[in-house]
């Protein structure tokens, strides 16, 4: 989702920025500006294994997620919706993706994190809301994080 896996890393990083200056110049796009932006994001977000022309689908899961996060955060959004951003990643990659999200939140980005990984929620969330069958069944203060209570609520116990 949000990736064209057969295209290069740089083309994927430009997926949103391509319609604005400096990449867009009237009906044309500047390959030079795409390369410049790509190089900046690659070093800023530590995206590894991706030469500019390589199909992005060949990158590892962690680098893919970091590429997507890099692209989205560099657009300066007000809110970022992250649904299971670390699913399927190894420990090191999970850690780096979480750190990116935490840093972005620190910088004032609102992040709605959707996850079933309770450790992830404990590590990242400032506010926790539990949903069951499409309804909000309760809110939990992160300082009183309790796996058992959250688990019960996730199973529907908190529903009135």
């Amino acid at each position, binding site marked *: *989702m949000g990736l*064209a*896996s057969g295209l290069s890393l740089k*083309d994927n990083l430009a997926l949103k920025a*391509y319609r604005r200056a400096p990449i*867009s110049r009237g009906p*044309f796009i500047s390959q030079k500006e795409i390369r410049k932006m790509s190089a900046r994001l690659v070093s800023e977000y530590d995206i590894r294994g991706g030469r500019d022309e*390589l199909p992005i689908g060949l990158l590892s899961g962690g680098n893919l997620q970091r590429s997507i996060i890099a692209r989205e955060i560099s657009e300066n959004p007000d809110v970022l919706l992250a649904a299971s951003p670390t699913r399927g990643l190894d420990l090191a990659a999970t850690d780096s993706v979480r750190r990116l999200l935490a840093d972005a939140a620190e910088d004032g980005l609102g992040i709605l994190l959707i996850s079933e990984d309770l450790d992830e929620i404990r590590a990242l969330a400032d506010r926790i809301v539990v949903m069951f069958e499409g309804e909000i069944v309760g809110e939990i203060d992160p300082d009183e994080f309790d796996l058992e209570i959250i688990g019960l609520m996730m199973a529907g116990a908190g529903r009135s």
Partner: protein
Amino acid sequence: MSTALDAPKARLHLEARERASLTVRIVVPIVSILIASIFTSIAMVIDGHSPIDAFVEIYHSAFGGKNPLVRTLLLSTPLIFTALAAAVAFRMKIWNIGGDGQLMMGAVAASGIAIFLSGAPFWILIPVILIAGSLGGLLWAGVAAVLKVFFKTDEVITTLMLTFIASHYMEYLIFGSFSYWRDPESSTYATGKAIPEVAELPRFWGRLHIGFLIAVGAGLLVWWALKSSRWGYETRVIGDSPTAGRYAGMSVSKNIIIVLCVSGALAGLAGAVEVVGINHALQPTALQTGVGFTGIIAASIARMHPLMLIPVAVFLSGLVSSGTSLQQMGIPIDIVLLLQGLVLLFVAAGEFFLHYRVRYAPRGEVA
């Protein structure tokens, strides 16, 4: 049981390539063409002909000297246009296989306007004719585009069917009616009405007309547009993943329509250039050679690259143009078609080696 499953001492295994080097990308197609030639040679030997004589004859009659070369380049001109038409569409995974129909409608439009504007000077006439030809092809492909976007009709079916309609319509105009396009003087064998002489494309090298240069120019233009325009970028993204395109806010429908129209316009230009460059009238039989389908072959061999397809189109045209000389040697034209088909087959199969390398690894070293 375990002995049966025992792996051999050493084995070949495949390894994905990140990106094939330039050498690999050049060597693989050449080897593919050589293998196709070997198989064609086998067919020739079975048929009782000497393959070496045949290949020497193909070379001489297609590329050896000015006249053969001009003939080949003339044949390649419409092919370059239809190959471009295929490449533009196929890159976005839009399967426009109706290049022939769009070519014919382009020829109908071009010859019609040429006869209509017979008093106009040449510098107005030629551009207007070429524009009319591309519009004819554009509108014909546009029908398939509208059906695809609004009714989700498969463009493989519609573009193919529209080719039959165009073909019969063109025959009706010349053979089946006394239409504006038909030469009223021709009665026993109906022919198209001749376009004014000023509308004929200028020639610059023997019989070679400037249509060939226009085709090469079109190739450069398409190459540049796909590389450097927002439109080219959008078609690349949508071709790879429509979901990603939509996510980025691109209109998939709009791009389908644009791509099919550009593709149709290129095929229509092929028809217009044939009318003003070669036939100088609407001649149905001259346009029913299946050059639209050959264009798909050329574009596929060139892996949809707008510049690479030009030498490929010239090469394939050389094979066709050598057909008559081969027939004089007693070798049927089907051998040439066989060679064309085999080249496509082996080049397509060779694609595999651009993505994978085969490695010989002794047992135990396999990662």
